[in-house]
């Protein structure tokens, strides 16, 4: 049970003179004591039927690792061209990436994504990428739950087009209209109102 941080064995080229623990592909706290599998870790990840099979497996594999390793990961939202079903095809010279917004709780009193969270995001992809050589690239974009510093038009676009892949619990206010699954993704016309509400001091978001 708990984290799987010790499963992978990577050569660490870090010179160890900086203050970031790059040997940890998860949460720094996880190495010191066992972390129980948190609520929501066994919730299913929304399938994306129009995504090619290899990319779908790559996405689910990397995201599953992140969910296991990061108890502070709260949600994953597919956005961008794949969510809108306008992605350039895999046989295009420049096929579209798969864009996923990752929403974390803050680590301690930090007001930005922590180094450990960034490292965990990167390692989740690195750990499995060689198993999916023909897949589209994954672009994981980490952010904190308050969505502070984010451009409001970006949030509006994600709220309008996004597909909730997975959530541990509640979502930031602008994304409350998102439902897990691919039905009705283009019908969420109330999300701009949600952004406006959040800007005026909604329950969760600070824009």
């Amino acid at each position, binding site marked *: 049970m708990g984290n799987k941080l010790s499963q992978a064995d990577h050569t660490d080229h870090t010179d160890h003179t*900086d203050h970031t623990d790059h040997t940890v592909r998860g949460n720094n706290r996880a190495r010191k004591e066992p972390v129980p599998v948190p609520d929501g870790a066994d919730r299913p990840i929304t399938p994306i039927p129009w995504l090619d099979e290899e990319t779908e497996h790559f996405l689910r594999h990397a995201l599953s690792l992140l969910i296991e390793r990061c108890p502070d990961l709260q949600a994953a939202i597919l956005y961008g061209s794949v969510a809108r079903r306008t992605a350039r095809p895999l046989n295009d010279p420049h096929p579209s990436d798969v864009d996923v917004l990752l929403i974390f709780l803050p680590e301690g009193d930090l007001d930005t994504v922590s*180094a450990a969270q960034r490292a965990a995001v*990167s390692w989740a*992809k690195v750990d499995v*990428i*060689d198993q999916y050589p023909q897949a589209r*690239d994954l672009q994981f*974009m980490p952010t904190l739950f308050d969505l502070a510093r984010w451009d409001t038009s970006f949030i509006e676009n994600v709220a309008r087009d996004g597909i909730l892949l997975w959530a541990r619990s509640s979502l930031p206010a602008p994304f409350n209209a998102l439902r897990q699954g691919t039905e009705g993704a283009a019908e969420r016309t109330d999300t701009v109102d949600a952004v406006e509400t959040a800007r005026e001091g909604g329950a969760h978001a600070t824009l």
Partner: protein
Amino acid sequence: MNEAGHQQRALNIERSLQDLGDPVTHPHNHSVLIECYWGAAFHWIVVGCMRKHQWHTDSHAGLVGRLKQLGEAQVAADWGQLETLRTGGWYTYQDSLADVQAAEQCWQRIRSWATS
């Protein structure tokens, strides 16, 4: 471009980083600083791959996967972080001082690897 050319490009970008000044007092430069760390790191990766693996690329597309194939997982992870920081800084205004410092740390580790 040969190995010396890539190294010179990296060094030139690092001079540009110096010219841009202290990110604490020049917050408007944050996204450009992140872009420069990304660019310099890319050229150092090419230098390192040529020296250690006799492999050359002029493209950053698919680089994380290729680095993993070469057995350079730590470099792949640092490059992956730089890609994320660059996208965040350039397109979504995620360019805080902490983001600049994270990019600097990734670049520094990649540079150390390439020159070791």
